């Protein structure tokens, strides 16, 4: 996993909690903590950090991950506004994940193992996103999507009719958004 993800986690923890919490996490997870954004580190270290956060903050690991996604996305939007400004809706933004966003990721981080999403756009109201990855980070995806909907000022209904963690062979995210009435 690329260092940038660890950096994001550190930033979120420091913002929502404090430096001490981050230190405590590092100690609890027994990891080095010297993460440079372009570097590559074992996936286990992230898993250990999530477990440590779960124990420290007394929250289930999936919720930690979802919470992380929800809070990391605004930081990403701040750092790379042009990806977001090109769209006015979560739906169209999500459709660019493979071709635009993850393409940029690969340029910066050659060899980054980003997941490929498959879409079902047959319904204009509901977008189905298929996600397969051995890391099973669908909760992270959920968090990201929730924050994206908030970013575009939309009301989100999000379900996972299928999930790898429940034994299915893939995760399917069922997304429908509606503009919030101002």
């Amino acid at each position: 996993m690329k260092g940038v993800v660890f950096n994001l986690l550190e930033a979120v923890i420091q913002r929502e909690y404090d430096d001490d919490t981050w230190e405590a996490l590092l100690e609890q997870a027994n990891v080095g903590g010297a993460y440079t954004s372009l570097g590559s580190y074992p996936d286990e270290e992230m898993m250990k950090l999530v477990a440590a956060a779960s124990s420290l903050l007394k929250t289930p690991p999936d919720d930690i991950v979802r919470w992380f996604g929800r809070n990391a996305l605004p930081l990403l939007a701040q750092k790379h506004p042009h990806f977001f400004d090109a769209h006015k809706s979560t739906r169209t933004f999500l459709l660019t994940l493979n071709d635009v966003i993850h393409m940029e990721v690969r340029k910066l981080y050659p060899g980054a193992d980003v997941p490929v999403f498959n879409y079902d756009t047959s319904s204009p109201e509901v977008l189905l996103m298929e996600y397969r990855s051995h890391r099973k980070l669908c909760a992270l995806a959920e968090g990201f999507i929730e924050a994206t909907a908030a970013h575009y000022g939309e009301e989100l209904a999000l379900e996972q009719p299928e999930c790898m963690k429940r034994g299915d062979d893939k995760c399917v995210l069922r997304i429908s958004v509606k503009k919030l009435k101002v």
Partner: protein
Amino acid sequence: MASVSDVTDIELARLKRRLDREQKARAESEAIAERALRELYKKQKEIELLQIIAVAANEALTTDGAMQTALRQVCAHTGWPVGFFHLKNSSGELLPPTLWHLDKPDRFETFRRVSEALRFEPGIGLPGRVLASRKPAWIADVTKDPNFPRAKAAADIGVRAGFGFPVSIGTEVVAVMEFFSEVPVEPDESLLEVMADVGKQLGRVIERKRAEESRDEAMEASRTKSSFLANMSHELRTPLNAIIGLTELLCENAPRFGTEKALEPLRRVLRAGRHLLGLINDILDLSKIEAGKMDLTLETVTIQPVIEEVFGTVRPLAEQNKNELALDSPEGIGSVYADNMRLRQVLLNLLSNACKFTKDGTVRLGVTRVEEAGQHWVDFAVSDTGIGMTEEQLGRLFQEFAQADASTTRQFGGTGLGLAISRRLCRLMGGDVTVTSEPGKGSTFTMRLPAQAAALTSPIEIIAAASAAETGPAASQGSHGTVLVIDDDATARELIAAHLVANGFAVETAANGVDGLKKARELKPVAITLDILMPDIDGWTVLPALKGDPELTDIPVVIVTIVDEQRRGIALGAAGYLTKPIDRERLVEILSRHRSADGPSEVLVVEDDEEHRQLVRAILGAQGWVVREAANGRLALDALAAKLPDILLLDLMMPEMDGFELVAALQANPAWRDIPAVVVTALDLTAEDHRRLNGGVERVLSKNSFAPAELMARVGKLLLEVKGQAKR
């Protein structure tokens, strides 16, 4: 309870840990950055290498040049001091290095000689295994490699690592390059990939060379064929000339020579000779058509005069078999788009066939305009009331040498080639010949030719097409290019310019020859109109100057003149052409057009073949001409300087100064340019020859009676034709 100092200690410890982490992270970033930069540099160098080799490959005049540059560049790029180039020969063997690069020649010369002395079978040694596998190969330490015949020499001299790659065209390996370093080096995959690319680039160089060579060979073969045909034509006709000419003479003059008894055998000789000439002409025609060397000059031909001439020629033949000749051609039948000479040839062939195979009957030529499938045609239908043909005979009709059957040749004469040639010619002109027949009742042969140049009906289109074909430096304004109008008469200039501009040309004008030449060189226009007969200005100086300048010679020059009479205009070039063997009657006829009104007419015969000179002297002398002779162009000029004849009869192919040069000299001299010159040649004139003879004058148009549209149409047509001819 924690004290303040405790808290501070904890904080300090935390900060220190944090600092540690930051420093480690930064060190790692730098390492990543360095790696990335090094990678970038490497890639850049590889791109440069490929670029340099690509440029060398494109610009190299020889393949060796390109390969040598590649050797040098790869050695420079890798830092490896030794590079060899092994070409593969036509038997598939790798030759010893024919090219090499040695950074330290003294040190590595021995290694080179060792390499030179070896033969690398496929699979053996470094070059051998590259040849066999068609892929690059790397040897980290050649002294330790079991398949390296030069291992001992390498160890002695200090050669350690080696890599080789194929130079290939597609999957064919045409050469192998190998490089050696002084130290062992582990394989560098990415370098090998780059080398594979280099190999492909170099392969393209060789491929291009091969293509050029085969194209050159083909062109050479074509040229040889052309000159063979031209020479054969000359060689075959020259002796026949003597045979036919002298025999004719003997027959005509039997009483004078007292050889009446010999008349019968002489007539047979003459007949056989003419038959042979017909055969030779037909075979040469067919050879030219087959070789794709038949030069046709397609133009708008007025039908009426052609028919009259052909009928005139065929009449005696018709009378021989007591046949009646009839013509069905409406008033104002107009013109057809064809090669003038070949049109006559085919008509003559069809009509004489009809006369031959009909007795006491009627041979009719019907000319009609037809529209079919949106195209306009002219049909020439030759029908006879002769013996007709069966289905089977019709099937064999257009084959060479297979006349309806062999007995027909015996009975009716002919070469058996006429129809085959006629059909080929018609097709080359964009038309065809078809036949219907009923045994015992008669046959109808129909030649169909395009009524006008295909797809270009309006003058505007013709001009546009002509200028589109121009690839030379075209002028900036005017979509079709710039035409330079040279004329001293302001009204004429305005008039011509106005019409050209209206048709999309830009126009520049010049009021005199000097200015005209200057502007021509500056503008390099698409075409030039030149008023030849300008009073104060010598148009004849301008024309040769234009044609003599290699930069301007291909620009078509359209002569616009106030002279009305077409024939006089043609006299500005050549007054006519004859081919050898000379048709006596035609010679007499052409010359008699130029007899002077008073006193004996004088002809200057310029001809290097003495026999021929004597023959002509005999023929023309009998007609009352005063005959002067000159054996070559130079002597002819002397003779002209002494006294002007009424007409010139000249052979094109002469030593020292050939006929073309003589005609040019005639036209360049105001005192001589009005003397009509009749050209005699045993050569077939190509379109290029015609042009040269005309002194570069494409056509002569009359200002007095021209209609603007017609002028435009002609100008456009000429541009198109001349462009097409110039390109060939």
